[in-house]
């Protein structure tokens, strides 16, 4: 196979993505980054929140679509809106902070006041606007919003296919993932946020990279009991990766944990015996204890939804592109709304153990990603290989392309969608 494909004959970013490799400049070229914001983030469904992050009337969360700040808010009628965070007067943000609760959005600059649905309600000294400003036309700009099973997405493109069509084959996996509330509706339990000096696609690849796990996460595996270490030793198991279409993919690492409502009579793992006991002591039935214990460690798969959200075993992983060589990651903890405290507490502790700036897993991932960014600068030309497992593909029961658990099938799925979106001429 020719590994010396010269890039000088290629003239568009889409040409930098081949079936089995992508050009290293995709990680660091600022012009390509700007093109991505335009052609990808401004042209697809971007995940902005889980419904439980805006639980009540007036609850809001700030988020972004690419680099554009938006507000996700629930209005008095409990409808969810996503709006550009830009005052229609002279442009100030009308909402700051990660999340909170409010009755209205008041611009700090000249005091224009907007309702929870974005409508412009009042402004100080209106006389000077007599006959020249119709309040009905100056509400916060609303962004098209649709939800699936609690996942809220927004798009700047009014004529885009429905979210339902966009998610397609991924919906089945979202439904499975949502079972980890242990019989209770899924609820977010706070998040870890951190930045790393590297491109957003390095993180996109990582969520569907099982190959690195035993290497990069050796110290995490050393910190759990033998039974758990065996669960995480999945490279030789029956796992697989499926290309779900539209850039989405699922990587099943632990097939026994795909459906958390099945196999409830399995023995309780040793590391969850204390949890089972405290749940039983609180008076929960044996069946409920088993359902909660089975759900507490999360699902046995990572679902990668192109371009910015993953349902990753036991948490949501949201990526926010900052620049070509900087990315912000949100690791959002989840549990069950109204679930026993011991269950949610255990989920929080498990999340802290692996995830976040001081977890036993994330810093090692971060080190690997930083090295990819730095190493990709070497040489004037060169490729990143994503061909692992290409000669051993099969077809899944759902009719999808399927590769081994440690194949790069999910990365290829994402990059082919990327290539397709980047081939569209600007301004279309």
């Amino acid at each position, binding site marked *: 196979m020719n590994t010396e494909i010269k890039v000088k004959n290629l003239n568009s970013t889409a040409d930098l993505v081949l079936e089995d490799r992508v050009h290293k400049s995709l990680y660091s070229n600022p012009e390509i980054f700007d093109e991505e914001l335009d052609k990808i983030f401004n042209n697809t469904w971007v995940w902005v929140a889980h419904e439980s992050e805006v639980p009540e009337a007036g609850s809001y969360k700030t988020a972004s679509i690419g680099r554009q700040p938006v507000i996700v808010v629930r209005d008095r009628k409990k409808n969810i809106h996503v709006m550009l965070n830009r005052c229609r007067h002279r442009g100030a943000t009308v909402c700051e902070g990660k999340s909170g609760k409010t009755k209205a959005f008041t611009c700090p600059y000249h005091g224009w006041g907007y309702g929870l649905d974005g409508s412009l309600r009042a402004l100080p000294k209106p006389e000077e606007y007599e006959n020249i400003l119709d309040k009905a036309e100056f509400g916060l700009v609303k962004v098209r919003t649709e939800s699936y099973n609690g996942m809220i997405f927004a798009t700047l493109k009014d004529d885009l296919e429905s979210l339902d069509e966009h998610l397609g084959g991924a919906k089945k996996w979202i439904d499975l993932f949502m079972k980890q509330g242990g019989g209770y509706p899924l609820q977010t339990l706070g998040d870890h946020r951190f930045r790393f000096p590297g491109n957003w696609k390095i993180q996109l690849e990582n969520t569907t990279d099982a190959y690195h796990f035993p290497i990069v996460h050796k110290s995490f595996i050393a910190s759990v009991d033998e039974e758990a270490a065996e669960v995480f030793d999945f490279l030789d198991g029956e796992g697989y990766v499926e290309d779900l279409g539209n850039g989405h993919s699922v990587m099943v690492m632990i097939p026994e944990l795909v459906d958390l409502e099945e196999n409830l009579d399995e023995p309780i793992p040793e590391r969850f015996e204390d949890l089972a006991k405290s749940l039983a002591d609180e008076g929960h039935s044996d069946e409920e204890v088993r359902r909660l214990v089975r759900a507490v460690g999360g699902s046995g798969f990572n679902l990668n939804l192109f371009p910015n959200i993953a349902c990753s075993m036991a948490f949501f992983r949201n990526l926010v592109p900052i620049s070509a060589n900087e990315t912000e990651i949100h690791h959002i903890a989840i549990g069950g709304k109204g679930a026993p405290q011991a269950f949610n507490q255990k989920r929080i502790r498990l999340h802290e153990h692996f995830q976040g700036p001081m977890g036993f897993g994330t810093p090692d991932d971060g080190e*690997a990603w930083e090295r990819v960014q730095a190493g990709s600068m070497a040489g004037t030309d060169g490729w990143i290989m994503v061909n692992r497992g290409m000669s051993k593909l099969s077809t899944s029961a759902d009719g999808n392309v399927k590769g081994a658990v440690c194949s790069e099938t999910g990365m290829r799925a994402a990059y082919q969608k990327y290539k397709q979106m980047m081939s569209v001429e600007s301004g279309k």
Partner: protein
Amino acid sequence: MKLDTQLLADVTAFLNIEADMLDNKEYLQWLDLWLESGLYIVPVEHNATDYANTLNVAYDDDEMRKLRIERLTSGDAISTQLGEKTVRTMSRFRILDDIDGFVRVRCAYSLYENNKNGLRIYPANLQFKLVRDGGSFKIAEKIVKVMKSSEHLTTVNYLF
């Protein structure tokens, strides 16, 4: 307000030793400074109070502290292999109260870290709950409110 300068001096001396051990990676000695029931907490949100039921950056009981030290020293973790240097400075010590043998103290804290991404500074408010132990103290609780912890941090390969 009458100042107990002796207590302040004792507490300051103890906390300087604690910081010095972390900067010099004397982790096993550092573990000995703790009560077994002690908690090391780096919260995400600085106004949190119910740490057990809230997501933290770190929430280490005795078992997790030992596992963390194992991780930082075993050489298995790629992020720790360069063994970056840290420098901590502390000032503005204030005894908050001294009740039933527990001394609560607060101070200003800055951690400087040098690594391949450059020099980084983490200012923090540090709060300890200490219990008298012979002529010295043991740590019952250490809470590190790192600036920006609720916005975004970078990955951390040491203890605050």
